[in-house]
């Protein structure tokens, strides 16, 4: 199929690219923009590893086509830290050992960011519910919940 031109903003930077209609957003981010921090775990919308923020809301980038994103504003894990300074959620994950292999981590960080912006003082139950769409095979979630709870204090509203 003929490629189409799209314009979008990723992590504050504007891109214009021509994409094949069948290219998913995650492949576009990883292959065309070389932003490999967004991971592919299942390509069928279950694992949440590919989560990015689309206009501030978490979405599964394996379930979207890049051409749907014309004009959109996207945040990936690469857009979280402020230069050398890690985002408070990233700091909290490190402090509380909220990651092991790190493969689920980008998706969880973005899910947590969107969640904490709307729930500044969540209960553990709310945290667990918020991240129920992100599979982690390494941690058993305990330290992830600790990290998100700790981050709740330090997240910019």
């Amino acid at each position, binding site marked *: 199929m003929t490629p189409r031109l799209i314009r979008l903003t990723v992590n504050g930077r504007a891109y214009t690219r021509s994409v094949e209609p069948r290219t998913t957003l995650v492949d576009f981010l990883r292959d065309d923009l070389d932003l490999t921090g967004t*991971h592919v775990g299942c390509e069928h919308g279950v694992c949440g590893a590919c989560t990015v923020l689309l206009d501030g809301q978490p979405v599964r980038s394996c379930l979207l086509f890049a051409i749907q994103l014309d004009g959109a504003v996207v945040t990936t894990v690469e857009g979280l830290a402020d230069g050398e300074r*890690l985002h408070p959620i990233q700091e909290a994950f*490190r402090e509380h050992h909220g990651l092991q292999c*790190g*493969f689920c981590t980008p998706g969880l960080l973005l899910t947590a960011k969107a969640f904490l912006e709307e729930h500044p003082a969540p209960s553990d139950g709310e945290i667990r519910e918020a991240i*129920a769409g992100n599979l982690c*095979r390494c941690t058993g*979630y305990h330290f992830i919940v600790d990290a998100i709870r700790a981050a709740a204090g330090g997240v910019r509203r």
Partner: protein
Amino acid sequence: MGAKYFGAAVRRREDPRFLRGEGRYLDDVKVAGLLHAAFLRAPYAHAAIRAIRTERARSAPGVVAVFTFADLETWMKPLPLFGAPPPGLAAAIAFEIRQAPQFALCRDRARYVGEIVAMVVADSRARAEDAAEAIEVDWEPLPVATDMRQAAEAGAPLVHEAWGTNVGVAFTHAIGNVEAAFAGADVVMSETFHIQRYVGMPLESRGAVAVWDRRDGALTTWNSTQVSHFVQQGLASALGLPHHKVRVIAPDLGGGFGTKASGYPEDHLVPIAAIVLGRPVKWVEDRREHMMSAAHARHQIHAISLAARRDGTILGLRDRIWLDLGAYNVWGIVLPYNTVAHLIGPHRIRNMRVDVQAVTTHKTPNAPYRGAGRPETVFAMDRAVDRLARELKIDPAEIRRRNYIRADELPYDFGMPYRDGNPLVYDSGDFPAALEAALKAADYDEFRRGQAALRARGVYRGIGISGYVEGTAIGPFEGATVKVDLGGRVLVATGAVNSGQGHETSFAQVCADALGVPLEHVTVVGGDTAGVPFGVGTFASRSGVTAGNSIADACHQVRAKLVKAAAALLEAAPGDVDIEDGQAFVRGVPASAVPLARVVQASIPTFAKPGVASPDFEATAYHHVPTVTFASAVHVAQVEVDVGTGHVTLLRYVVAHDCGKVINPLIVDGQVHGGVAQGVGGALYEEMVYDEQGQLLTGSLMDYLVPTAMELPPLETVHLEFPSPRNPLGMKGLGEGGAISPPAAIANAIEDALQPFGVDITATPVSPARLLALIRETA
């Protein structure tokens, strides 16, 4: 040389790159001119290939090549097989073993759904996948064997005709006098337990990238493997290349759990394509491929009997064990014998007889997954002990008190070999102490006191116990090279691959202490065959102990060299020189301190003079462990069962464990948590389901249920520390333990919750539908 870092909860050094999305996993490896491979996989569990037509695929857009077995015949060597019994074991037990090698591509028949029939290489992954669909195969479906017990019977359809049977491993093993034990017993409890097929399911699937350098005649391949040196050996022999011309690099791994410790057809096919085409080739497995072709695991049946006195003392144990190998017997005695060596666990049982059959079926091959036979065998044993307790009206905690081996009985000799052929002797630990610690942490007595009142209100809560003793850190060794560079900084290279366990932190802690340098001065590289000549890899809870001790040994050698050079530089006796915090100094003379960089630089010859010593600040060590060390734990689960829906809620989960000396307590907790989560999946949710035709019904994560944060409770851990006398660092293995006991502990808790119904849990996963059916049967 104090322990400044060893034992400290150091924050992980690999985390910043993972948190920033700057890890480099297999799919992140990019090379100029990359081609992409896709595979056509068998749609039948057992079928003969009558013809393959590839013309359409070959002429599809972007396609560079299509390979079938016939196209690559000269390259097709049998894939590696493992699991011959080591001498000490072969001498003690008569194993019947049949192994048939798999070829990377099906030659003339497929033996499981997902076996590779053809490889397409194209300029993009999408086009390679399109073309794979255009390959036409004339299949002749053949009869299938899918049930392990039926497959073991005469007359079953055969997976490997030349064997004349489907039994891949068979043996009988006995200790003590089991006949006398059963004859003298007051009570005999018998039950058959089924452990389903469930799998590691790392969040990152498998993959490989291969680059062939024509100039050097050398292959570099990145492979998401836990065992780069094994992959290197397999490739060197299959490709007829010297080992030093095959470099295997394990990049960051998105989990492994054993699934990535097996050998796979793609390990060979991707490099072969790169060599034949002279172009770099990449393949990344998709989740559906992963589910049907990455190794499956578990899947056993135990027909177990316990003979006991009326007071609950267990006198003897009989178990008939079946294990479903899937289509190839890749791992020989590893899983069946692991199962046997861990059956007795913490119990004082001197009389045992086991009859084991590992059986091939037309399903995906079975390989070790976190625990490797232990979760299965512990499920059978701890369920049987609970059943015995129920029959004798003894509390499940009390029957364990009466049967657990006491600390003063250690070292405890079973009078049989471990899987490595060495005597099975528990080295250290205190199983009753772990039991009491777990019960106390879980408020066992209080729970019991409240249980009846809750039941009266229609709230069904139960508590379940499971304990294990686990042979960890199987040898024979791991390789580690330690070098100090011109700037006084240290590189540690080891064959142990980091798949999320934090090696870059924990191994740096070991090195920094042993060498006397700041942690920040150490870089750890794992799983690059160019870094250390010989290595084994990460599996079997072995890396901390085997690589840790090799790193310490190598550091001690390098330290001695540094001390000698520093002594020459400082004009002191070597015995007076010490190294701390990256500085060499004469003891008691702080002003004499010089940075290690100075010591190294002063050792380099100049035009004017030779160096103060040879600038050889490097050592490689292969620490040999005499045999495994025994880690142990007791798990206690509290559950609530909704008798209207069959839904099980985990209320609390407590682990009291001993893994010897701990390098980093934060990492240890994380490993326990992750293991428990996988065990919970096995207990309640996860199952690879096949139909009678050998079709896989669970092909996505919508069908195969990995636990989410909603299914898991907070996890409570109690640490007991009994150093192992079997290695200088006093460590024991840790990685697998968490996954061993949850199925047994949770099933025991469910049965306990449902005492009023008299429900018998004999199989996992205990899904709501299954549990509801059981409740209805008894109601």
